[in-house]
């Protein structure tokens, strides 16, 4: 048998069931793997294997995720564990409760054991905005893993996790999944409860899984989804088995190629990888249709108005009163607020709060925020019209392969443009998945390219079926390659 830590969840579960290994052994191997490779990668912020091993000893492997260790992005509350959101503001904070997704994972037998690095409060595309340390891309340690869920993606790629949870507000699952050569799913808005996810932009945030197979993502979605009384935006939907339509080809599927996603400025090597992926879909029996999403070029602008506006309101809670950093010896309440926030928050978070406060401020609200909300309607309509013609869209996940650490830190706008292909899905509330589709060689290192499939809202079953067919035909050499 291959190293335990190389297995997918599905493979690990059959190894449990055939008695070849046990949850305790899997956790011990995982811990050893993390100790060996994480000093170089920096995917984790903290781990609690003592507690996880106690859970593993009594794990019921007959449950849907019985005895399966799952790494958690440091923005999702796990009772008794730190939850720093990659920020000094929450240094020392211990979660007083389990997020709904964690309760659901536990009920399905899964074991949370570690906290994954991220851009501070999920703001960033490279994980360089973490207040703690950078995370390195396992394929090339001089490069970023993407972000904001960079730790979650890097851990899965480095075999330091079987699967992880991340959050996606503008691409924070799909973009790092692409840059690290793993599968990352952003479910539709309303599919999964966000209770216990520290809010960034509430009309856009969604929790989702990272794994080394589409099937594993589907298995996780089965467990994570569902109506929750603690999140009024979670939807009450009939139970579905998202693995039911896996293992098929693409016959009868219509896949749209949005022409606006193939513009100049994309790395030509990424472009040819995506073109090859499109050809693969045709070979698998899909009918390809060119479609237009005419408002695509407005998405980044709309996003950085709406997301920062919502963030400025959500992050007002970090006031140094009930929890989080408090400045020493304030001379009055205003000084208390201003210095607590100045000392606790990093540059990117401050920049976005200031931008968000500005676009909501008196005199500018209509010009920026309201106009952006109207443009958001047009972007949603683009997708609604496209999905009348096709079952899914295919496009790049990111215009570039992983860039070098430090390359873009001084140019926020350029960093924002890294999300150009992922942002519209959040604005429209639809689902999307990134699966590996190619490798590009640079300076003697191979760097993964991800292809993104987008599906209409709540159409995850079909989206996963298409991604799984593509994966079987094309992604396995990347997913099965241990880059370290």
């Amino acid at each position: 048998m291959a190293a335990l830590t190389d297995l997918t969840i599905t493979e690990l579960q059959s190894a449990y069931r055939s008695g070849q290994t046990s949850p305790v052994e899997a956790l011990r191997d995982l811990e050893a793997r993390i100790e060996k490779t994480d000093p170089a990668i920096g995917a984790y912020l903290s781990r609690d294997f003592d507690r996880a091993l106690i859970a593993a000893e009594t794990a019921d492997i007959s449950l849907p995720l019985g005895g399966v260790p799952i790494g958690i992005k440091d923005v999702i509350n796990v009772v008794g564990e730190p939850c720093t959101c990659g920020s000094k503001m929450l240094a020392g904070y211990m979660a007083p409760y389990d997020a709904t997704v964690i309760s659901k994972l536990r009920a399905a037998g899964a074991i949370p054991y570690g906290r994954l690095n991220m851009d501070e409060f999920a703001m960033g595309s490279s994980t360089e905005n973490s207040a703690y340390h950078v995370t390195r891309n396992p394929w090339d340690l001089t490069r970023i893993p993407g972000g904001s869920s960079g730790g979650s993606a890097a851990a899965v790629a480095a075999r330091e996790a079987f699967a992880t949870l991340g959050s996606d507000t503008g691409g924070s699952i799909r973009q790092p999944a692409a840059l690290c050569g793993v599968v990352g799913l952003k479910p539709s808005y309303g599919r999964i409860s966000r209770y216990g996810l520290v809010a960034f932009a509430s009309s856009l945030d969604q929790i989702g899984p990272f794994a080394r197979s589409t099937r594993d993502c589907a298995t996780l979605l089965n467990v994570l989804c569902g109506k929750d009384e603690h999140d009024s935006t979670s939807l009450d939907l009939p139970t579905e088995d998202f693995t039911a339509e896996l293992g098929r080809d693409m016959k009868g599927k219509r896949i749209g190629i949005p022409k606006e996603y193939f513009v100049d400025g994309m790395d030509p090597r990424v472009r040819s990888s995506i073109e090859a992926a499109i050809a693969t879909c045709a070979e698998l029996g899909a009918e390809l249709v060119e479609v237009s999403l005419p408002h695509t070029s407005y998405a980044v602008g709309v996003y950085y108005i709406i997301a920062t506006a919502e963030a400025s309101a959500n992050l007002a809670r970090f006031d140094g009163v009930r929890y989080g950093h408090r400045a020493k010896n304030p001379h009055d309440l205003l000084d208390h607020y201003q210095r607590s926030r100045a000392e606790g928050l990093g540059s990117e978070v401050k920049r976005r709060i200031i931008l968000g406060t500005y676009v909501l401020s008196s005199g500018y609200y209509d010009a920026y925020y309201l106009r952006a909300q109207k443009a958001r309607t047009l972007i949603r309509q683009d997708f609604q019209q496209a999905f009348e013609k096709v079952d899914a869209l295919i496009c790049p996940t990111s215009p570039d392969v992983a860039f070098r650490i430090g390359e873009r830190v001084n140019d926020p706008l350029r960093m924002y443009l890294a999300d150009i292909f992922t942002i519209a899905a959040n604005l429209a509330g639809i689902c999307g998945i990134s699966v590996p589709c190619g490798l590009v060689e640079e300076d003697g290192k191979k760097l993964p390219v991800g292809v993104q499939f987008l599906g209409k809202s709540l159409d995850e079953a079909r989206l996963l079926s298409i991604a799984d067919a593509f994966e079987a035909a094309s992604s396995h050499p990347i997913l099965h390659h241990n880059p370290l």
Partner: protein
Amino acid sequence: MSSPNLDVRDVARLARIALSDAEAELFQTQLAKVLEYVEQLNTLDVTNVEPTAHASPVFNVLREDVIKPGLNRASVLANAPHAANNLIVVTKVLD
């Protein structure tokens, strides 16, 4: 859309964030670039377009008004920057 006349110091005061001179200067330049980029929304005709606040088809979600247990007091107070006598100690609000 109005031309960007963002005064970073003024907005940072509204957002209750103290900025150093260096930060204020840097953010002023960087955010001016971002606002210049979003100016492209000006070219979009949004007459008679309804705004979208969120993508969820649910509205006015209500629950039964039933008392349920809240968070454990000790774990909440443990996160407070300053707690005493089972209370969170705050900076003086009134003179």
